[in-house]
């Protein structure tokens, strides 16, 4: 379960404090697929960074399972990011000089998994997201946008994380491919019992998630009608 309580992140802009995330409180149960919608500059990416332990909040609490990640420091924080969180980015952010297979093996290597096991696991995941064996040996530059995002999803799933954070995962894809990716994420949240939180502009996609939050000027509201 993801439980966020009174989360706040204040930046200084021209000497004046600006709350990018302002007293945000919400809960997403295990295996649920949630979405956050909001305009540019509303604080979506900042919120995602805080949830992914990429940044420290000014105040508040983020509990993943029973662990408050805002209290974690240094190597515990790195370990948390490695083992409990999976990231999916709009621009895929794959390492360009590694093959698709090697990209998926990367977080497994950071988790100190033996090479043979991580190769097996990466192949299994890439198969799961529908990447053929010959495509697995290609570098990201030789893959289409949809294929690259599939590799990114496989990479996010590598260490069987409790929480997947996706920042505009369909933003750079055509609508058909975007729908395929969304369906893939949706089915994964079911089969892997992974909590998925997606930041999106696409209201159609947001409408299909289990719950949707609207972020406006750092303040979060649960969208009426969402489950």
């Amino acid at each position: 379960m993801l439980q966020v309580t009174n989360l706040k992140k204040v930046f200084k802009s021209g000497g004046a404090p600006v709350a990018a995330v302002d007293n945000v409180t919400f809960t997403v149960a295990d295996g649920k697929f949630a979405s956050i919608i909001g305009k540019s500059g509303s604080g979506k990416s900042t919120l995602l960074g805080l949830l992914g332990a990429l940044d420290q909040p000014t105040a508040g609490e983020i509990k993943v399972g029973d662990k408050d990640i805002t209290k974690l420091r240094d190597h515990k924080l790195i370990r948390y990011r490695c083992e409990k969180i999976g990231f999916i980015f709009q621009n895929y952010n794959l390492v360009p000089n590694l093959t698709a297979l090697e990209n998926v093996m990367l977080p497994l290597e950071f988790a100190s998994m033996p090479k043979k096991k991580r190769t097996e696991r990466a192949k299994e995941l890439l198969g799961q997201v529908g990447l053929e064996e010959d495509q697995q040996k290609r570098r990201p530059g030789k893959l289409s946008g949809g294929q690259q995002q599939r590799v990114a999803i496989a990479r996010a799933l590598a260490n069987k994380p409790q929480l997947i954070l996706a920042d505009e995962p369909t933003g750079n894809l055509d609508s058909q491919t975007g729908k395929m990716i969304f369906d893939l994420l949706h089915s994964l949240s079911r089969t892997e019992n992974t909590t998925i939180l997606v930041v999106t502009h696409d209201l159609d996609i947001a409408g299909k998630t289990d719950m949707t939050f609207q972020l406006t000027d750092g303040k979060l509201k649960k969208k009426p009608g969402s489950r």
Partner: protein
Amino acid sequence: MLVARQAVQDKITTVKSSIGNTIAVSPAGARGFEGGGEALTSAQMNTVNSITNVTGVTQTLSDRLTSTDTNLQSAITAGSLGARAQNNSGVGFAAPPEGGTIRSDASSTSAFTQITRTFTPPVTITGANDVSSASIYGGDSVTFTSGQAIDVSKDENIAAIGKGLAEKNNLSVGSTFTAYGQTVTVVGVYDTGNTFANNGVIMPLAAVQRLSSQVGQITSATVTVNSVDNIDGVVTAIKAALGATADVVSNQTSAKTAVEPLESVKTISTYSLLGALGAGAIIILLTMMMIVRERRREIGVMKAIGSSNAKTMLQFVSEAVTLTLLGLFVGIFIGIFAAQPITKMLVNNSSSSATTQVQGRPGGFARSGSTTSTALRSVKNVQASVGATTIAEGVGIAFLIAIIGSAAPAYVISKIRPAEVMRAD
């Protein structure tokens, strides 16, 4: 430059070792059996032995056995060179043979009588307190064809004799001969491969001193110093200790002259190497900074998916090491072909002035055939090769360049926050 420096360093070591770490001490005014002066004493040599950095003093007392001193027949025939010495006085001239010519010149009105004397090359006897060095036997190397070396600690009438002398006089181990009116037993027969040296007799120093009535006296000493670099200091100390009674000669000056050009090449190579090291480090630094800047997002992503600072930095440092090792291999490849001509050019340029200085000295010391002149002649003959030591040093330098060059980029990497990369998305 690394190869040139290594080649020159090897040459310096070779020149220094070929010139040796010994100092010759002889009575003032004497050289071998030439000149004059007063003998030195073993007591004086004990003083020399106590000088700092002196590791040993080999004392010798040499004498020439005339036919009146010994029953030994010289193994060397006079020949034309010996005949030339007929006009000289001194030892080695025997009385005319029985029935020989004491010729009166009847055509002369004067009462001139010419005595025809027969020259016999003398047998040299040497007393020594240490016979471990082949130079005591007069050669570059020595082997015993029978018997063994004398025990120098005993004041006994025992001797090792040269192979030529033994054959001429039908002597073998256990045979005896007379010297200074006493019987001496042969304990060993040696071969130096040198005809003159194989005509000698080696005995314990004390025995020769006693037999020749020169107790406590020596005619030469060889002082061994712990390092070639300390020779100058020891020479000064010996001169201070013995004053005007001794001539002290070392090859240190010659060694210095011989290695001076090499030392300057070594200095040039060292500074060039340091310059290359600095330039290499700066190039790697700038290259790595550029790479880190270009791959800032990748670094952020790696951190976001669980890579630690140390792991991320290690990846970039290993990339820098790979880059420098590639440079090293290219450098070694070029070095194999370019090292020899570059080293040769540097050595030739530096040593030509030194050679001119040596040749310009009146009565220059670089006599043909001497160790020093050989060393001087060989100074230019520097062989540059890429050996295991050079490669090992090259690898070490490559690692140093990589580490220095990637230190700043590594710091930049450690400061990249994954959240910043997300915001830049």
